[in-house]
């Protein structure tokens, strides 16, 4: 125990750099996207660096990771990187190596170039049914189905601007889902079912009560099979299915085959480019879970992307487009239905109402 190594932190970044990065660190002059998936960065030293981007599934085996290592060994002096959206980037300085690398990737079949510029890049996502305990949906499966459908936009630059799609499998939103061009969100719609016979054993009642943002949870005594237990009740009218009680107390699961599904959100962004960062807004309140390929979700996302592609100005993100044409037009052009659920009723609701006679017929 005394030799135990702790608190060393991660390896220092520069241990992971190929020479070209060391030599040109902070010296880059400009970049140019040569074709979908291929970036050129030119340094003030004259160095030209070619980056080739392929999709990462994020959820992968060590074998798959080893595949990437092998490519990196063969073409990139044993170095490669991952992007902030889980794509994989191989870098070479020599144009002839670039062609060889591209060919090698093409031969793999599952390593298509893309993810750059005005297209759809990888979907940032979370665990889903592969690991987490609170999901309302799967993650990797939905991502696969959606990306298969949008694949033409992965390897092309034909959208008005970049479209960033994210997925989170519950309201905890482990990702920037709240600020994405299109966000896929797992939602519960039934209040927790309560295991009265075990709640007091498994959970701290006061913490559980305090966890509820709407104060829907009250302490109670419940009889189960003749025995009386200290437990809690939920006022279903006040529950908005956030799952926060379940986070604090395993005796209150929310998951339900009929209750759970997908909500779609649109028009968020993170960059400070042109317009300020924006939250995503509700587009579709609910789509049932349809494993294995979630056809309705896939279809509606395409509907949104196509309406955007057809109508937006170049260099205009989804949210900028919706705001320019007005949300009444957004719903019209995407063919989506507007419902009571789209009208905010949470804390800042009043700031989202239309305080003007300005709108379109």
């Amino acid at each position, binding site marked *: 125990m005394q030799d135990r190594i702790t608190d060393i932190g991660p390896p220092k970044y520069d241990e992971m750099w190929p020479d070209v990065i060391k030599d040109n660190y902070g010296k880059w002059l400009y970049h140019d996207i*040569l074709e979908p998936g291929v970036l050129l960065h030119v340094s003030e030293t004259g160095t030209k660096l070619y980056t080739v981007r392929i999709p990462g599934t994020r959820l992968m085996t060590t074998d798959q*990771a080893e595949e990437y290592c092998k490519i990196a060994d063969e073409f990139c002096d044993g170095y490669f990187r991952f992007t902030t959206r889980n794509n994989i980037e191989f870098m070479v300085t020599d144009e002839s190596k670039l062609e060889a690398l591209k060919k090698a990737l093409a031969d793999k079949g599952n390593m298509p170039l893309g993810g750059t510029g005005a297209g759809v890049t990888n979907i940032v996502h979370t665990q889903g049914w592969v690991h987490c305990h609170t999901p309302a949906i799967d993650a990797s499966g939905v991502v696969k189905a959606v990306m298969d459908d949008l694949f033409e936009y992965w390897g092309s630059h034909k959208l008005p601007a970049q479209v960033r799609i994210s997925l989170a499998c519950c309201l905890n939103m482990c990702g920037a889902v709240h600020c994405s061009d299109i966000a896929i969100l797992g939602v519960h719609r039934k209040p927790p079912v309560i295991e009265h016979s075990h709640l007091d054993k498994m959970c701290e009642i006061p913490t559980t009560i305090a966890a509820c943002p709407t104060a829907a949870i009250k302490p109670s005594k419940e009889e189960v099979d003749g025995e009386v237990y200290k437990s809690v009740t939920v006022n279903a009218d006040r529950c908005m299915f956030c799952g926060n009680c379940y986070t604090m107390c395993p005796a209150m699961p929310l998951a339900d085959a009929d209750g759970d599904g997908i909500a779609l959100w649109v028009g968020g962004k993170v960059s400070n480019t042109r317009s300020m960062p924006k939250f995503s807004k509700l587009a579709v309140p609910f789509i049932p879970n349809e494993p294995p390929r979630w056809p309705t979700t896939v279809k509606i996302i395409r509907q949104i992307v196509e309406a955007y592609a057809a109508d937006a100005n170049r260099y205009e993100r989804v949210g900028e487009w919706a705001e320019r044409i007005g949300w009444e037009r957004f719903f019209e052009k995407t063919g989506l239905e507007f419902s009571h659920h789209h009208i905010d009723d949470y804390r800042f609701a009043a700031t989202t109402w239309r305080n003007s006679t300005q709108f379109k017929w």
Partner: protein
Amino acid sequence: MAIKHQTPMLDELEKGPWPSFVTDIKKMAEAGKEACADLLGQLELSYKDKEGHWKHGGIVGVLGYGGGVIGRYSDVPELFPGVEHFHTLRVNQPASKFYKTERLREILDIWNRRGSGMLNLHGSTGDMVLLGAFTEELEPIFGEMTSKGWDLGGSGSALRTPSCCVGKARCEWACIDTQDLCYTITQEFQDELHRPAWPYKFKFKISGCPNDCVASIARSDCSIIGTWRDDIRINAEAVAAYAGGELAANGGAHGQETKLDIQADVVDLCPTGCMAWDGKTLTINNAECTRCMHCINMMPQALRPGTDTGATILVGAKAPILEGAQLGSVIVPFMKLEEGQYGDLMDFAEKAIDWWDENGKNRERIGELIQRLGLSEFLKAVEIDPDPRHIREPRSNPYIFYKEDEVPGGFQRDIADYREKHAR
């Protein structure tokens, strides 16, 4: 090896052009990895049930650390014993996620031998997430890992693994050294990263410029974004080349064939209207520029950020739980951050975190605390003067809380004095 579980639904996810995680996992399952086979089996069951099959949490970890491991158990272990325990280890990634294959293989090797062989490259926070270990393997994995120079990241009410954009390593726009900052912060806070002692989680993310390629403004309690104070650098020759259609618009992001209309695509879309183009010369009224990056993004060979660089620091971004999602709010409009000279930043972070630690309720993020106590209170705590840059617009409600010492004569009054002048 023969397939252990039939997965007709998952098999559907082997189709299509996007790489299939199912195909990948299947291969490893077929190669004999029981955890992979049972993971697929349990996932298939979830697809059938439309409900997940993992139990709620479970406190597991490595000695002396309060975080870095997320406990997970199957709720159908008899069917899928290979994933009965399926704990994750969050391994702190190298800043901006470059890997030397040799080093990465250290992790892959340990994980092949002692874990499920499944991983996430990377988790949403940025860690290398090793998915699926049995409890008894945690300590040995940790021992092997650290002996190779790797360490765990954060979880629980602690600092979470900081992350950053590619920055100076491969981007011409980085105004700060994102990697070095990320690494330094991670090292400085090792104790806070590994031993949860705060009201809730706390995240740092660092982007080199306002494009914010690590989405820090949406996902980090403390978002550090590179920017500049002087003028955008203009290369007039390259401007002419864009005007002449020799260079592709937006760095080729719309295809090499898409050229730039400087007036329509750059000048007219500048949010402050501070640019002018007379067909020959592009001028920028830098005083009115808000450094949104649009023009630079459009003409990367002609325009570059200035050279008096530093960062804007924003505090409070988070996901919706509990009080609704927040974006980061400007707290330090500008801070110089020359390599290695991070004293100001550390001081600031310390003050901010101390205030939060003292005042925050259990599971209250710093952004929520600022909402509860007021932005002004937070500014006072970090000793920063109020500035219009902190706000989008001044207050519109008249409900100002004056302090007693601001008002001549204070708050104490005698009703008798009042009644002397004003009959009841």
